[in-house]
């Protein structure tokens, strides 16, 4: 278990996804990239982002970096507050609702994004599994 967005967290997430997620069954062989921008991170209200790249259901890239942008273009960019990501990762709220409640903003086509929700659930699940500590 690790703290959200910590170096340790990335490693754990990667491992978890490699080990536990089946590219076909869980990730539906999806090929996409996602940039998650996390705003209002306590204590100093900073911004970080994590970049995820899947090819045919395999995790190619998973990077966390500071600031609102990452050098690589992502197919989808979701932006939300630390609190929102927290409740998603703690399973208090699912990504779709967060989206429909404007808690998470999305750049890119909604239809496509919703089609992706299923496989992404797999990813989110893994993140859930390894995340247990948050700033508060």
């Amino acid at each position: 278990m690790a703290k959200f967005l910590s170096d340790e967290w990335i490693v754990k997430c990667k491992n978890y996804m490699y080990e536990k997620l089946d590219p076909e069954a869980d990730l539906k062989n999806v090929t996409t990239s996602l940039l998650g921008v996390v705003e209002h991170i306590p204590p100093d209200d900073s911004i970080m982002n994590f970049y995820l790249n899947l090819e045919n259901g395999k995790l190619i890239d998973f990077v966390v970096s500071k600031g609102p942008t990452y050098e690589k273009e992502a197919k989808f960019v979701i932006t939300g507050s630390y609190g929102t990501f927290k409740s998603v990762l703690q399973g208090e709220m699912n990504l779709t609702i967060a989206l429909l409640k404007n808690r998470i903003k999305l750049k890119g086509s909604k239809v496509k994004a919703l089609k992706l929700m299923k496989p992404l659930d797999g990813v989110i699940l893994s993140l859930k599994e390894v995340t247990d500590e948050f700033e508060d």
Partner: protein
Amino acid sequence: MIEYYPFLTNFLSVKTFNNEIYIKLYLQITILGVEMTSEKILTLEKTSFKGALEIAKKGTHCGMCRFDFLETGLCPSGKKHGFLAYWPQGRMQIFKNLMEEKVKPTEKLIEIVNSCSLCGICDKQCNFATQLRPEKVAKALKDYVEELDKGDFQNIPEDKNIIALRKIVGEEWATNDPIITSSYISSIIAPDSKFNFYIVMPKDAQELSKVIKYANSNNLPYLPRSGGTLLSMAAPTVLSNAFGLEKGIVIDLLRMNQLEIHPESQTAMVGAGITAFELQKEAHKHNLRANVAEAGAHICANIASTGILSTWGNKYGWAADNFIDVETVDDEGNIINHSDLEIENPYTTEYGFTNISLVPPLIVTKVTTRLNPVFDDEEAVFVPFENIQDAIDLSFKVARRGMGFSNVILSRKYLAEFISPTPNIAKDFEYILEKYMKLNYAVDIICNKDEKKIIESMVDYTIDKSTLKSLILGCPKLSTLKDSEFMKILSEEKDPLKAIFAGPMKEHFEKALEATPENISKIYDEDLQDFFKKAYSKPELTNIIWLHEHRIFPSRLMRQRMFLPMGGVIWTEYEKNLLDWINMFVNVGDKNKLIHALGFISPFDQGRFACLEYDFYYDHNDPDAKKRVDKAIIESQERSLQIDGILSALNFYFKGLYRKEHVLFPIAKAISDDDRELFRELLKNIIGGV
């Protein structure tokens, strides 16, 4: 340890009381934490509590106790303190919560009960709408507090958030008190949620902006609340989580009560705290009319949520047509107007069935809304129909020709519910309409005298003013005629409708109804009869046009039970699908054993579109019924998407700030099977998902 402190003090205090009941009660509640049904408590409690709880449970948050629609004045305590807890509906909710042990007494509770002088205004208002006596609950709540001991009231300390929020809105307008918070249950907070909430009542956009900025930087979710009716409809259902707030800041906008009429430009400046009724009343003083939703709905919230769906839409428009400009606060706390030049396009939204929004895109704090002239020759035309196609033909024809101000097809059910003072009378009334009169639908048009002539020339007969008045005041009598000879004879007529509304029987009928304020007031409790006699003597209570503008009747759909409005918009080019759509709802309703009925169909945009409301009714205290409603919602929602030419409710909510052209065009077609799968998934996430 602190946990047990209150208990110990309670325990001692209670012991000195030497009151068996309370010892048991507190042992169970605080130490053993035994699951107790309210039944058990009630056996221990004064029986009067039982009655009060029954009343409280029946409450449906229709919101009619929050504005002065009978000239009784307003609940003084609510008006003064603002928070829902101080209003009749809030007291009912609090009492329910206490009885069901959702919340423990706090020191605030004392202030809340003391603020109520038992003036009885709420009984009058509530009785008109729902036949309930909230004052009894208020009284019970007082008694309940009486019997507690000082120590029983927990003191709720300020935390860092509440301190910050109070800095923004002022001491008395922000709270984290569980009792106050709990009064918002079922109208924005889910019944099963913990009370980690703050309630804030900002007085203007500037304060709201600060609240939101604070919320963001402290990762507190928030949701605005106005009348809360829409939310309360969703609350008992699967949509509860989707529409409600799970934690964080409830922003109660009631204090934004700016209201200015500008007769010269025929517009009004309306703050988020203003209800439809209040605006309409003010507009009328200037011989102007606003396009508004139900009396209790707040104008600003309603514009954002459904763009104001009214029977006047064909003439007055929908969504952005309603306003000149809006002042809003976005989710970064920026205050923006739709007229600002340097903002992102505020008038458009993504097109398609996946564009579902469960919250307003912006919080509307003020709107400059359009007002429309009132003509001195306006009249109501009521045309009764046995079958719906005939009703549709007339209504749409009139709409396309641009005639009429208000134009709607009312179902028998609506007619009965609206004008009948009690559920039972409504039931009998509807029975008579159906069985004897064969009146299943009424095309109900408000228009000027020229148009009236024209419409009358299109039909055989209409229901005139005097008959309508007799029906409103005479409905109790009418319902007693249920099994009368008169009705039997009537039903044998070739065309009973004609016979009774235009034929020889009209006179007898109106006489038979003995329609007087005196008579209708008799159906109310002894002590209220004088009041209601006066109320019904007021011309507006039987003035059809006034009733269409001020819309105080629809609240009766919520009396002592709940309903969920489904439906949406249909393109009249696809009129042929309208009946399929309705039948679909019928099937879904039957299948799930619900009381269900068409509400209304109303054309708008010169008859290009029509909106349809179909209602599922249920007992909100019956868990099984709720399950069945849930099924009905999901199924009907999904099947609506399989019909050409329809934009269903879920796609319709919170699109009111946009140009209708960007929401409604092009015509929506039935979705593909893949998309259906996608939509199922989506729905599952919304509903199943926490």
